[in-house]
């Protein structure tokens, strides 16, 4: 079953989305969104993996020794993590303001847009 890691990544995404959809708490929803995003980390790293390979760093070994894992998807994972952290920070700031203005962080109680 050589595609299992990809399917695991998809499973993580769907599990996180399920959490967002059924969430009763905005903080919980933000955490679920982080879970969703971590599925993309797994997918990227799984695509870049290579059996018998080591990290793509050549500071302490010759350039043409063992094969290395794909550095492009690893760099994209780094970008992904940074963007994920900023999105989480921004959403938590929004949740703080919602809690202050509306006195609740249950999305089901936030019916209308007016404050």
């Amino acid at each position, binding site marked *: 079953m*050589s*595609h*299992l*890691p*990809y*399917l695991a990544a*998809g499973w993580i*995404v*769907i599990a996180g*989305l*399920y959490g967002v*959809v*059924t969430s009763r708490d905005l903080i919980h929803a933000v955490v679920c969104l982080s879970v969703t995003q971590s599925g993309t980390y797994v997918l990227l790293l*799984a*695509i*870049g*993996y*290579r*059996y018998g390979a080591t*990290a*793509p*760093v*050549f*500071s*302490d070994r010759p*350039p043409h020794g063992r*094969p*290395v*894992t*794909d*550095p*492009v*998807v*690893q*760099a994209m994972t*780094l*970008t992904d993590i*940074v*963007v994920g952290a*900023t*999105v989480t*920070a*921004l959403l938590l*700031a*929004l949740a*703080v*303001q919602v809690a*202050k203005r509306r006195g609740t962080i249950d999305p*089901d109680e936030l019916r209308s847009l007016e404050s």
Partner: protein
Amino acid sequence: MRARARTLLFAAGAAGAAALFTAGALDLPHFGGAVHPYGDRAVHQALRESTTNTISSVNFDQRAFDTIGEELILMASAIGAVVLLRVVGKEAEDQGAAHRHGPAEVSDALRIVGYLLLPVTLLIGVYIIAHGAQSPGGGFQGGVILGTAVHLLYLAGDYPALQRLRPIPVFESTEALAAGVFVAMALAAAGAVPALNGAVGVEVGCALVLLIGKFFEQALLVREPPGGTS
């Protein structure tokens, strides 16, 4: 029920997405295979530029423009959080006993560990940044460590010391300055066409805002003389 309907709708969507994703994933190259054309080229290019940490080379050399976008996302998010959390209207700050009279009540162990780890963590952050081109590490990872190190003071219960250590205006302007330096260096390294594109983009954007602003003034603010045509 509404929640039930929502869950059913999600189940339908998730089933469709899962089917499509599975079909797509089954056609991907096998996990752990030896064919990584982009990776091999990236490694080759990084070694030619003698950057031994290939991931740093990809982030700051081969995909530096993407990293500009990433950095600007980070900055936009920081600005957004500042705007969202600013003290608005009648919201008053608590000037009372909580953080006026020195350190809070935390256990001595936590306080000592916080004070001891602060310099060590700062040093590790600088090390991770400085060695990012050669060994695992880099600006993003080291920057996170530096930012975390400062807040060990908060864990140690000494919020006043934290406020003295990190004057917010200095950090705001340094962040903007660093982002500007990054953009300028990337444009300088990329040659004339991207730099000219950038300059034209800024010029056109500003010109459009000015133009539309003038039209708005005409339409909304300038009053027609009394007894006019209408």
